């Protein structure tokens, strides 16, 4: 559990972070969204003491971070940054081994851990391991950066615009990988992004920041359905709200018994995908597949549209 207690950071008398109090549950992924200069990166860096708060405290599992020496604290916390920050003179494998080396793990254990992580992140240890960062593609470098952050099995992972430098196709893959790895390991993640769509896609909860303050802290569906301030609504993009909400809910939830013509909707489809398919193929009713790939029911257009209204939202 991460607690920010009235945390502020002043630079030359100006507040980059202004009296922020937040509690993040263990094992959740919290997305901190804001425009540049909103203080989101500063807030993140106060967790591992790359930035010291001017006032207030940050607690991890009840312990004040200020009571732990910075280097020791940081070795327990994973950290991923936008430009990967891989050490250019070390191989991918050595980069991943950074924190275990600092912690003085035995060599054999480090080697095994590096292999294991590379496999989890779908990097071939024999082919990619010996390469230098400048020999990696953007997506590979990003995954090496994540592997490096996870090497010493941190319970907490901080990510500062981790997908910002990736093209859209690779970004989607990287986001899905992060979600999978996060669920698999039960890591608590704080992810800073300027992209609301990314926050909605990945976050269990979203904290919207503006000028150093938290504008709203809520689950994605609630943020979409009831933006607390005009700024949050702006960030969402008013026009897309219905689609954003519909992209969060699985179509299976509104399936009815029955059958329909035409190709089946895949099992994990969202309401937005169901509607898009209806518009594209000119159908009012779609058969929907269950996890085993066989038809389990029918999704009707008016039900989809009704479910896209905020009062019908999941919260």
């Amino acid at each position: 559990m991460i607690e920010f207690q009235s945390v502020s950071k002043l630079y030359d008398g100006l507040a980059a972070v202004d009296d922020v109090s937040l509690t993040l549950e263990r094992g959740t992924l919290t997305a901190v969204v804001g425009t540049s200069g909103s203080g989101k990166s500063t807030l993140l860096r106060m967790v591992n003491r790359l930035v010291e708060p001017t006032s207030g405290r940050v607690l991890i599992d009840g312990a004040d971070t200020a009571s732990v020496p910075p280097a020791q604290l940081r070795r327990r916390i994973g950290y991923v940054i936008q430009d990967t920050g891989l050490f250019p003179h070390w191989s991918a494998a050595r980069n991943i081994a950074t924190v275990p080396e600092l912690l003085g793990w035995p060599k054999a254990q480090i080697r095994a851990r590096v292999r294991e992580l590379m496999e989890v992140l779908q990097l071939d240890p024999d082919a990619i391991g010996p390469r230098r960062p400048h020999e990696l593609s953007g997506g590979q470098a990003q995954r090496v950066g994540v592997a490096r952050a996870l090497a010493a099995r941190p319970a907490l992972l901080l990510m500062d615009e981790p997908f910002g430098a990736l093209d859209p196709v690779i970004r989607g893959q990287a986001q899905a990988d992060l979600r999978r790895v996060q669920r698999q390991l039960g890591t608590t993640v704080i992810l800073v992004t300027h992209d609301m769509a990314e926050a909605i896609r990945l976050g269990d909860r979203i904290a919207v920041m503006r000028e150093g303050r938290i504008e709203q802290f809520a689950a994605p569906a609630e943020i979409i359905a009831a933006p607390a301030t005009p700024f949050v609504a702006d960030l969402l993009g008013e026009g897309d709200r219905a689609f954003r909400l519909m992209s969060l809910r699985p179509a299976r939830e509104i399936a009815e018994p029955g059958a329909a013509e035409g190709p089946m909707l895949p099992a994990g489809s969202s309401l937005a995908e169901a509607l898009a398919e209806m518009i594209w193929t000119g159908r009012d009713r779609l058969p929907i597949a269950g996890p085993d790939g066989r038809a389990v029911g029918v999704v009707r257009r008016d039900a989809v549209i009704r479910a896209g209204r905020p009062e019908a939202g999941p919260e």
Partner: protein
Amino acid sequence: MRPAGVLRLALLALTAAFLLFPALFAPMLRPLAPPNMPVIYDRASLSSLALSHLALVAAAIIPSALLASALAILVTRPAGAEFLPLSRALVGFGQTFPPVAVLALAVPVVGFGTWPTLIALFLYGLLPIFENALAGLTGVSGAVRLAADGMGMTPGQKLRRVELPLALPLMIEGVRISAVIAVSTAAIGSTVAARSLGEVIIAGLNANNLSFVVQGGLLTAALALIVYEALGMVAEAARNRLGLPAEPASRPAG
């Protein structure tokens, strides 16, 4: 072997031959010497002069490199940043002073011999090494530095594991520049009785023996080239060991 390698080897072989068997080259230099005067410098062996010339350079440049690098490291630490202007002024001052002036000023204080030359070379060598080390250390990207901090490296670990290895090729380039300047400047040291190839040139000027002047001058130039090439190879090896591309290459797409 590449042409550059052949040239290097030829230069080295020719220089070694001249130093070890100067008599072989006497016929070529004979027209430059006045009648009845020795063609090859004979008051000391050329090879021993070349060795003490190089020793003089090493004895000045090694401490110069250590001090300049230490200063560059100091001023790139958060606590030492305020010393940057002072350090710049200090090493810049060393560079502005013409070595001849340093020699002239040092002789009354430390006497004739090796010391005035050592002091001049030492001071003159500081600036290129300092500026290159500074460029190397500040050239480490912000993301890499942030990552080093974020991974939990202590400031000392960050310096040893990340900053110094990345700055090393540029630091060696700085030493290379200073060493080459020092080889040519060390010759002047013989005006205040330092043992170097300058002795041969000065003897030639005194005795109006052009042959001495030419062999002293050529050998000094050859030493400078050899030092330049040798340290260039060391810098290249340091770059290769880092596995960095020679030119900063852009990341492959995707």
